[in-house]
């Protein structure tokens, strides 16, 4: 099948092994601009490994990753972030001793221009930039209902807030593509529902393209345009959520092989 030329993120035949273990084999993904795709699969299926390859934490053994036509394989994570791909982490990785505001401000550093000398001499350019960073960060915090906690250490936030702060931080890098690794983990149904609405808003207001890993099937089915299912590193299904839900291979991967009715 010929893929649409318009895909923003194009991943082809990406594989990686750790020792003898083939963690991900021949992973393909064509993510169109402003798409909202899901990546699901049982624990250990290789979902986070896919994220780690996309963001340069791991280098794939072979295959290609292209973002807006630019080859990303072999680039360092910070370079990939500046190319327009940012992420959140399954096991939250905030800057724990720093304030909520600082967590977001650090992610703005990428787009700043003033260097060491401008900083030391407090040049006007530097001061204007610092002000712009604060404004931008506060706007993001407001959007994520975190503005009232801007001054607190990020480690003191409740779990759900920490997850949302990670998303806010990812957005501060001005990404084209955002990878969300289990954004609803640890959230109650009410929070998850609010998160679903927020993720949709992100796509519509920030015009970002989103790929998310999630175990909460309700969330995936509710918001994703398309879903890819991984099992033991192999893509076993890919398609619209409703079709995926009925796919016998997917059901088998999650629930085990069907047994004879007694």
């Amino acid at each position: 099948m010929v893929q649409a030329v318009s895909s923003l993120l194009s991943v082809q035949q990406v594989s990686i092994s750790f020792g003898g273990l083939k963690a991900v084999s021949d992973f393909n993904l064509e993510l169109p601009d402003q798409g909202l795709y899901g990546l699901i699969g049982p624990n250990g299926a290789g979902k986070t490994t896919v994220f780690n390859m996309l963001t340069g934490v791991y280098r794939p053994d072979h295959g290609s990753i292209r973002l807006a036509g630019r080859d990303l394989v072999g680039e360092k994570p910070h370079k990939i972030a500046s190319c327009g791909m940012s992420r959140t982490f399954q096991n939250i990785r905030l800057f724990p001793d720093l304030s909520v505001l600082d967590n977001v401000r650090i992610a703005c550093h990428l787009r700043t221009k003033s260097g060491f000398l401008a900083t030391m001499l407090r040049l006007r350019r530097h001061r204007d930039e610092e002000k712009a960073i604060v404004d931008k960060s506060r706007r993001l915090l407001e959007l994520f209902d975190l503005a009232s906690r801007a001054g607190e250490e990020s480690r003191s936030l409740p779990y759900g807030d920490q997850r949302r702060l990670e998303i806010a931080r990812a957005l501060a890098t001005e990404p084209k593509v955002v990878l969300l690794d289990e954004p609803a983990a640890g959230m109650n149904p009410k929070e998850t529902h609010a998160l679903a609405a927020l993720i949709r808003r992100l796509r519509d207001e920030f015009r970002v393209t989103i790929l998310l890993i999630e175990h909460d099937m309700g969330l995936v089915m509710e918001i994703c345009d398309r879903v890819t299912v991984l099992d033991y590193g192999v893509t076993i299904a890919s398609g619209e959520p409703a079709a995926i839900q009925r796919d016998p291979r997917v059901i088998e991967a999650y629930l085990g092989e069907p047994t004879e009715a007694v």
Partner: protein
Amino acid sequence: MMARSLWGALAPLAIGFAAAVALQLAAGNVIPPFYVKLLMDIGINVILAVSLNLVNGFTGQFSIGHAGFMAVGGYAAGAVTYYGSFLLFGSTHVIEGWLTKGDLLFVGGCLFGAVLAALAGFVVGLPSLRLRGDYLAIVTLGFGEILRVLLQRTGDVLQTADQVQKASPATLATSLGGSLGFSGLPYYTDLFWVYVFVTITLVVALRLKFSSLGRAFLSIRENEIAAEAVGVNTTRLKVRAFVLAAAFAGIAGGLFAHEIGTSLNPRELGFQKSFDVVIMVVLGGMGSVSGAVLAAIVLTLLPEALRGFSEFRMPIYALALILMMILRPQGLLGLKEIWEMKWFKR
């Protein structure tokens, strides 16, 4: 508007320099020589602690070779002033007065020392790209020890203008006194120059900390993977931290070399000295500039205060450290500055 922003940029420097002038004027009359020496020691330790904090506190790397950079700066500055004095002025006697030729030679030597130390910092900083924690600590320790051995193998200091004029630059650069140390350096270090450099160090450290660039430094210590993921070039910034810290340690070395009552020898600037500075940073609070200043002051004064019971000095010192580690492992101020603490705001 323009003038105001310029003033904003320069005011802290101006105030610091004014204070340095005031201290220097007081030194001759009001402050007895013993306290002048103590104030100089404090200033030099402040420069060392605040600069090491850029590496150990800001970026979370663990360097225990700071005295090595101090030695590079000290010996380089010493060689420039000592041999320079012979070549330019015919003798190594201190040229008395404000901003004399001798003073300028001395400051030039210190800046040259800073550049050499920064180069050394770059070389030592490179392994920090691959190593972390204890492994990096061992590399920095090894650097200090290698330097110590190299310095011990240098030749005797040339004693007369005649010898110096006949010697080649290579001979001068390797006649640094060996294990006996580089003696006979003119005492150019005074309160003015110490506190000028203290001011510069503090302004740089604080402006860095409260800027986008400084927050990027801090993000490395907080979570390196997340820092990379939000676009922080962690390798570049780690090396930069090493270079910057080494440059200031080089200055401190230059000041130390020309201070009255100190001896510039390889043992003096060995592991023990590095460790003293690490303790200042750890006690003051990793990442706190004012904490490092406070710890540098207290730990310079403490040995003097305990001099009366000198046999108990080391045990008391050790006990204080252990108590601190148990009661407040993040250091006195943690990451915060003194004016950000709750008990200060209230």
